[in-house]
């Protein structure tokens, strides 16, 4: 079953602007992870945030987690053309098998 839902499904911005993608999920989670997928390639891990954490940074990436609203956001600052990709959130639920369940992804296009 699909756990995360991302918003927007597609986002197009100018180089240098900030990009924000949101993810909502349905059940209690152990952690939430963000992945990037370039066209025709495999997924690459960006950040993992645990359920007891509220914010994490990695370079130009900032991830927030609000467990009361069951939502997360990924902010990419000072976007570059190379950031053009699909971005997926994925969650590990507290109950059930330890598996990573992906959202539908946000297609991000950075225009030079």
């Amino acid at each position, binding site marked *: 079953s*699909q756990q995360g839902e991302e918003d927007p499904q597609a986002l197009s911005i100018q180089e240098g602007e900030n990009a924000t993608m949101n993810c909502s999920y349905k059940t209690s989670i*152990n*952690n939430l*992870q963000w*992945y990037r*997928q370039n066209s*025709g*390639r*495999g*997924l*690459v*891990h960006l950040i*993992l945030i645990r359920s007891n954490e509220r914010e994490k940074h990695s370079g130009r990436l900032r991830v927030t987690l609000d467990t009361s609203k069951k939502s997360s956001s990924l902010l990419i600052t000072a976007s570059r053309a190379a950031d053009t990709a*699909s971005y*997926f959130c*994925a969650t*590990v639920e507290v109950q059930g*098998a*330890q*598996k*990573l*369940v*992906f959202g*539908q*992804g946000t*297609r991000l296009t950075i225009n030079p």
Partner: protein
Amino acid sequence: DTAVSQTPKYLVTQMGNDKSIKCEQNLGHDTMYWYKQDSKKFLKIMFSYNNKELIINETVPNRFSPKSPDKAHLNLHINSLELGDSAVYFCASTLGGPNTGELFFGEGSRLTVL
């Protein structure tokens, strides 16, 4: 020095045929997965193995049979291929499971069933 490698990268075949996709990881991980990504980019877990033992088997048709000869390899065999099997299949691995860390993905195997 590829971490997770899958072969073949592309596979085009006729309905009713049987095909296999192979996956190998050199990261020393103990858990491996197969995911299916459909044309809408939706990723769905199919199977997971931990130290050669099947631990996750989502509702996948019996035509799909994973095999893990050792913890570094996880192959996927598909019998009697159907049009709906057309997708990109991703192998992934992790150390200790997704509760503790990230998954490392292969580059995918694009299967087209005609």
